């Protein structure tokens, strides 16, 4: 399964649900899958994708999707514990797991050496977990998660690294306020 195919699938299933995307190709591919104002693309802050999604889920009653990566999640495993502690019912975390740091030379990540992120999630108290390796199983897992009111859900999606798409023409401040304005009235001059 390629990440872009999975991203297109998740984007199609998401409806109006906010999606937070990990830095780099994950954000580029989410944009190429079809821009939505409720896409929160990140291009820095490696490791914080699912932390941002946790904050969104705890401050909103809408389903929230995190598109994280194995290398980024390994950088901030503590947030899996925080998700397990807070247990937001409306949060679905999807980890694109290529078992490598694709952007820095393809070095083998810890998931390629035995670390099992699904087991990490389970040990942190997250009970709805799955590991999928093809699009059919991913569609079933994401559909089940989005239809459920008993999250959090944690899906490890094993992917093969493929070529990169062009960098998406997005900008952090514009991304944040375009996203935020779908939840609140836009700020006015002088506010």
């Amino acid at each position, binding site marked *: 399964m390629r990440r872009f195919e999975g991203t297109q699938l998740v984007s199609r299933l998401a409806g109006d649900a906010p999606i937070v995307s990990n830095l780099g190709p994950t954000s580029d591919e989410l944009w190429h899958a079809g821009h939505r104002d409720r896409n929160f693309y990140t291009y820095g802050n*490696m490791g914080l994708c699912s932390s941002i999604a946790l904050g969104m889920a*705890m401050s909103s009653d809408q389903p929230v999707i995190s598109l994280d990566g194995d290398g980024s999640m390994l950088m901030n495993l503590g*947030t899996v514990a925080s998700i397990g502690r807070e247990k937001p019912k409306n949060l679905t975390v999807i980890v694109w797991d290529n078992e490598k740091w694709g952007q820095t030379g393809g070095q083998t990540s810890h998931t390629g050496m035995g670390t099992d992120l699904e087991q990490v999630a389970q040990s942190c108290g997250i009970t709805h977990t799955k590991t999928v390796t093809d699009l059919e199983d991913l569609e079933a897992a994401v559909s089940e998660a989005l239809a459920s009111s008993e999250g959090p859900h944690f899906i490890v999606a094993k992917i093969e690294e493929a070529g990169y798409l062009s960098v998406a023409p997005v900008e952090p401040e514009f991304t944040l306020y375009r996203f935020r304005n779908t939840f609140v009235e836009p700020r006015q001059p002088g506010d």
Partner: protein
Amino acid sequence: MNWAEEIVKTLKDWNTSMIVYVPDISIHQVTSLIDADPYFTLVSATREEEAIGIAVGSYAVGRNAAVFMQSSGFGNSVNALASLCIPARTPIPMFINMRGGPGEFNIAQVAMGRAVIPIMDQLGLPHFVLEDDGKMDRLLNGAMKLCHANRQPLAICLTQMLHGGKIA
């Protein structure tokens, strides 16, 4: 009203109901009040950069958030400020318990405690130091107003002289 109660009142005045923190004995005087008040959601993060991420997520869906941490943990949050809050212009007030000042007993706290303000200056972010509770209401309200007007993080540094904590 003591300093901790002043902070709680200010957070409410600025509709800041999502509070993310990494536990600390001195700011416990505030976070225990927050924990007991149903107005707030108090989230315990495992690390300070994670706390910043959670707070940004909350702000992104329209709910104001603040972060509490110790000066040592501020060091863990710097890249989150530099690569998330600043480029996305996110107003996150940070209440930082300042170690390394007069009365500090732990050598390991001194360098990071002294580096907080220079780092904030290098990042171009505003900061205020509270040494006592005089005029605290005006300063806190002014800081929150500036934070939201500037749409950038801002540090309110809580010293041992203010809260009396951990002075040997």
